């Protein structure tokens, strides 16, 4: 094929191997020590009893039994799981629904569309901690901007984060404000890949917005919808920062904003707030969360990919 490389290869095979190995070594060492090993250990540790930092004995499925069937742990687990599911559905409907409308609007490329793209993506680059505290201040029952605005139109103060029925919704709202730009731009990128010819041909054939949307755009952006759905699912199951910052580690009030990420952290590390610190139970939770995320992602990928092909 080429004389130069063969020459090097044949003449100094050991030298070449050494060079390749030294290029690969640092990345591989980091991956083995800080990804592969911890991941395998997470599965192993779930079957051990802990007393402090080191596992003390193999106890089979005991940790799983506790978090799934023994009160109060099981109650906390299902309460958190329920909120994760609610969060996923709410984000799909409100965040991705809004993102879809925005993406379709931006697709028109009306004057100012680039500025809108920059604006809608701006909160995405901020830390969830900043976003969480910002909205916590805005949602303050007496002095917060939201209630002060409502007061202008004569609506009384709502204790957004202090009320069981509004707390989760408030936290979700902040999350949607934070992330909206991400699905918007992913969907927009999907829409922009549809050929102009396809859209113009449909237009010339007299297709209105509705037909254009259902027959051309929706089917052709199926891959983007798959990605957005899966990322929303993963995101909602790893949800941690905004509920932690806005509503606290125990998911107050009454556990109304408790999600699996918080519950997992609290079980593993939160000794000061709840009196529990159990690496064994924490590992069991981590394994279950991992199985849920990996399992649902695999099933969703298969199902959604098939839909893509059919369409």
């Amino acid at each position, binding site marked *: 094929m080429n004389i130069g490389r063969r020459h090097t290869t044949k003449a100094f095979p050991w030298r070449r191997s050494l060079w390749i190995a030294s290029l690969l070594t640092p990345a591989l060492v980091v991956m083995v020590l800080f990804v592969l090993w911890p991941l395998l250990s997470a599965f192993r540790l779930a079957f051990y009893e802990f007393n402090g930092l080191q596992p003390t004995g193999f106890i089979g499925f005991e940790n799983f039994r506790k978090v799934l069937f023994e009160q109060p742990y099981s109650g906390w687990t299902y309460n958190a799981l329920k909120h994760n599911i609610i969060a996923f559905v709410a984000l799909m409907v409100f965040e991705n629904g809004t993102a879809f409308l925005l993406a379709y609007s931006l697709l028109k490329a009306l004057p100012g569309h680039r500025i809108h793209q920059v604006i*809608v993506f701006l909160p995405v680059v901020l*830390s969830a901690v900043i976003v969480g505290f910002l909205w916590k201040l805005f949602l303050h029952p007496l002095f917060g901007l939201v209630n002060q605005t409502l007061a202008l139109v004569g609506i009384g103060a709502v204790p957004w984060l202090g009320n069981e029925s509004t707390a989760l919704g408030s936290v979700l709202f902040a999350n949607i*404000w934070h992330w909206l730009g991400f699905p918007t*731009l992913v969907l927009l990128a999907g829409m922009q890949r549809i050929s102009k010819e396809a859209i113009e041909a449909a237009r010339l054939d007299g297709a209105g917005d509705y037909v254009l949307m259902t027959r051309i755009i929706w089917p052709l952006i199926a891959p983007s919808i798959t990605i957005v759905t899966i990322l929303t699912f993963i995101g909602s199951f790893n949800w941690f920062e905004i509920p932690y910052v806005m509503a606290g580690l125990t998911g107050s009030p009454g556990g109304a904003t408790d999600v699996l990420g918080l519950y997992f952290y609290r079980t593993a590390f939160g000794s000061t707030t709840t009196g529990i610190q159990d690496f064994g139970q924490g590992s069991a939770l*981590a394994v279950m969360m991992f199985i849920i995320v990996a399992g649902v992602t695999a099933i969703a990928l298969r199902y959604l990919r098939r839909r893509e092909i059919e369409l």
Partner: protein
Amino acid sequence: MSAAVGTREPGELLKNGAIQLMLAINAVIMIYPLFVMVMSSFKTNAEIFSSPFALPAHFSLANAERVWSETNFVRYLANSVSITAAAVMLILLFSTMAAYAIARYQFRLSALVLMFFLSGMTVPLKLAIIPLFIQLDSLGLVDSYAGLVLVYVAMGIPSAVFIMTGFLRTLPRELEESARMDGASEFRIMRSIMLPLARPALVIVAIQNAVPIWNDFFFPLVLITSDNLKTLPQGLTVFVGEFTTDWGVLFTGLTLAALPITLLYIVLSKQFISGITQGAVK
């Protein structure tokens, strides 16, 4: 898309007007909270509560001075800068080296090695935090810069290797071959010929990793306990605890924390957007 098709029709104009209106409302919802945050940072507590919608009476820097002098804010900022910089440099270095080996040489295990790196992309490292914590503890790296940086490097390598391998494969063989014929060493070929060509991919990888590392809260929360080592997002929680009732100072803290990345974003918005959405849009 063609805005031109049928723009002249009144129906189309009306529709475009409606779209512009919707986009404008959305822009206000996105920007107004940030605007209030910045404006409030110039206000006194009394001003924030009595006239929340007004512009500040004086653009006073008193709050900023208090944040600067009475808190550990500068320390947190410096920690975030050094941890993010160190992690991103190491990610770029390690992943480019590995990707270079995979992309530019043929060796027996290359497919397997690439597979190993790619499988790392599917692992949510947050869920492995318990064994990670035990691991770092046994290495004496809990509550240290090094421990946190190593976790970030591990988190960043898989997708970085993926992007760099894809990019390095597209570079032409000819340059490499002719340099080799001229007697250049393998290292020299990599450093002086290939890497300068890979700059666009390096920028994408840098931004894609810098943003989540800079913003991360979870790993410092678990791994860092000394106040002196805390990063900015983590430090903000301390800060908010100290000033719960002084909203002027709170908004100033949030504004100052948001400032660096916002300014960078405004200057480099295109690179930021493609950097962060890169993985998804593929």
